[in-house]
């Protein structure tokens, strides 16, 4: 058998546990109250433009982008603004959010809610970017970088390839998988729209070989979209990292500290492509997304279409409750997601899944001394020495950590997953990155 394309350096194969791979996307009833955090995108949080007591419709602008890297937020439900107050978000901090009491389901008239698929792209390049910006689209792979900024290619650079990330290399998560199966054509049209905005001739959708149904479905559909190529990839974590995906698909290496455009690539998630389709063809803002709710003990592992701001409690109810002996609730996948302190935390634009771990898997095993087995080095997809960088961070030798390229770390967690001594390598690396980042910024000033 011919071996499939993949990235070369490092990588791991955690158990896939994709329990919800065959659960069709289903809607859940509207919650009574939505909590819409303002800080949902990478960069600066938008400013609220509604106040307590205002009536809002579904899709109405409620917070406006306030800086270059910022994104609009629209009301995910109709009803009344209860308050603008702090609410615990997935990082554990209390940050400002708009609370909406849901009443009915009245949509803004400008949004096309029909099921018809609009294939013809009428908007021109500039209009597409404007629309994406206006509709508050951000990267749905987890980084939540405002998409319209990605589409504005810096002077002197040129994109040759648009890569659409359908890898979904995180264990457990299946929201992108279901999306490709159920909304495949919309994903392809969204890809075409992005291609038009970027003025690129070729797009590749990268999908790991553990989703054969998605690969064959998109291949069938792509017969009508000859400039979109569906690339099957070997199953390997962290292939969904954009640098790894670019390496795997077009064999180009993004230089240290640079963005993908340096090698002529722009990477977007399949979920983002779908959101772009809805924004451009249907004028629909980013007010809902697909969220996987899963776990070994979850009675009904599911893929839900959820309004932004829906508390996780509501999702749990739909999946027949939180299993007994749940020890950890993760927002995102088990490799890169964040552990939550409560189920009151709302779904945001960047929530791709909620994974429940049983108690016995929740606590870290006891840390042992490093035996210099070098497994962390072999696992690191960036070619770093995690054991050394972690030690340097621990000893506060941040200059040496910087020359050891700690800032190249993509925080994929492969090192810590592999470490036989259970050393919390990524904790130390994150600390080191934070301190080194501070050093670099103070040097600039």
């Amino acid at each position: 058998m011919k071996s499939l394309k993949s990235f070369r350096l490092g990588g791991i194969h955690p158990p896939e546990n994709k329990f919800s791979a065959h659960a069709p996307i289903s809607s859940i009833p509207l919650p009574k109250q939505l909590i819409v955090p303002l800080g949902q995108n990478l960069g600066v949080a938008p400013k609220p433009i509604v106040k307590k007591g205002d009536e809002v419709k579904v899709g109405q602008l409620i917070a406006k982008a306030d800086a270059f890297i910022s994104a609009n937020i629209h009301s995910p439900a109709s009803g009344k603004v209860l308050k603008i107050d702090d609410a615990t978000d997935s990082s554990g901090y209390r940050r400002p959010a708009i609370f909406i009491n849901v009443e009915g389901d009245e949509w803004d008239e400008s949004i096309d809610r029909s099921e018809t698929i609009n294939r013809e792209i009428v908007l021109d390049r500039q209009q597409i970017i404007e629309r994406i910006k206006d509709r508050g689209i951000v990267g749905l792979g987890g980084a939540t970088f405002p998409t319209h900024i990605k589409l504005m290619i810096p002077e002197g650079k040129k994109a040759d390839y648009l890569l659409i990330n359908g890898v979904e290399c995180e264990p457990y998560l299946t929201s992108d998988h279901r999306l490709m199966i159920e909304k495949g054509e919309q994903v392809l049209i969204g890809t075409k729209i992005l291609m038009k905005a970027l003025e690129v001739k070729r797009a590749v959708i990268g999908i790991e070989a553990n989703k054969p149904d998605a690969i064959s479905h998109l291949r069938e559909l792509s017969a009508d979209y000859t400039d979109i190529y569906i690339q099957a990839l070997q199953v390997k974590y962290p292939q969904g990292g954009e640098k790894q995906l670019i390496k795997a698909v077009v064999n180009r290496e993004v230089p240290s500290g640079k963005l993908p455009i340096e090698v002529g690539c722009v990477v977007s998630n399949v979920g983002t492509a779908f959101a772009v389709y809805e924004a451009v063809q249907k004028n629909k803002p980013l007010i809902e997304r697909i969220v996987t709710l899963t776990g070994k003990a979850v009675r009904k592992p599911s893929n839900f279409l959820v309004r932004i701001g829906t508390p996780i409690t509501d999702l749990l109810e739909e999946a027949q409750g939180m299993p007994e002996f749940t020890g950890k609730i993760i927002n995102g996948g088990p490799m890169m997601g964040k552990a939550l302190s409560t189920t009151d935390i709302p779904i945001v634009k960047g929530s791709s899944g909620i994974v429940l771990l049983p108690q016995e898997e929740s606590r870290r095993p006891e840390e042992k001394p490093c035996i210099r087995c070098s497994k962390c080095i072999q696992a690191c997809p960036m070619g770093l020495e995690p054991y050394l960088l972690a030690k340097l961070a621990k000893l506060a030798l941040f200059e040496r950590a910087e020359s050891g390229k700690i800032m190249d770390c993509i925080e994929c967690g492969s090192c810590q997953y592999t470490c036989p001594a259970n050393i919390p390598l990524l904790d130390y690396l994150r600390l080191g990155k934070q301190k080194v980042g501070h050093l670099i910024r103070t040097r600039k000033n």
Partner: protein
Amino acid sequence: MQQLTISGSPHIHGEESVKKIMYSVVYALIPAVLISIYFFGWDAARVLLTSVIACLFFEWVIQKYLIKGSLTINDGSAVVAGILLAFNVPANLPVPIIIIGALVTIGIAKMSFGGLGKNPFNPALVGRVFLLISFPAQMTTWPVPRPLFAKAVTDAITGPTPLGLVKESLDAGKRLPEIMADPSMPDYIDRLTGNMAGSLGEMSYIALILGGLYLIIKKVIDWQLPVSIILTVFVFAAIFHWIDPMYYVEPSFHLFSGGLMLGAIFMATDMVTSPMNMWGRILYGIAIGLLTIIIRIWGAYPEGISFAILIMNAFTPLINRGFKPRRFGKIVN
């Protein structure tokens, strides 16, 4: 409401653990343990048991009363050190000497640096070399194997190792064809299975290679390091043999005599004391092979790999500095 655990990602962990790694080394050593018991009978069992129990005891005492840390003797590393120390001594070594060896191995070479992972030198080799220098007579009196189920034995209880025989005879002015014809020189079959005089566990090359393959398949060790040591010894032995076949033994003799296999497969590959980068490990292996041949040919001892590995242990930090992994996205100018 249930208690929820909060911690940074990743939230899942692989199957590997220090304990599993250490015990897979123990499993890999079992064939050689069985063969040594077969050839040396209760003597082998006595040395092995004394060494392992003494190593465990010293680690427990030091950890509990001097370091005052949590229990570490169940991580398997003391068991590995104990077996390897036993493998590196003659089967008739008196019990008190073994205990001294275990004290040096665990007490000085391992725990004085802070225990597992902190020691710069391979503990079992430090113990072995300490004994070799302190008790030269007992450490170089080699019992001849007496297979468990063999008929009543001859009166020759001790004999020279093949390498020792070659060295002594060459020093006495003899030449190789004559030495090889010596009745106490074992043939290749005996050498492969371990039926000859030598340290307890170093002789059965088949058993050692089997253990090595197991560790390579389990990804506990890589193949590059042992192979680079063995190849280097082979190449240099071949060069010398080609220069003067009367004086320098053939290369295969070097491979299948003395502690080369044990050292290359189980001692040099010790994770704690060997370099971390693959190319660094290859360089390290070549240097060990070279030093081994130099000591075997020109040194005072017939055997050289223990010293070679200990010398190179000292270079490991330097090699780790010089050999870095290939970084992703490194700009090449």
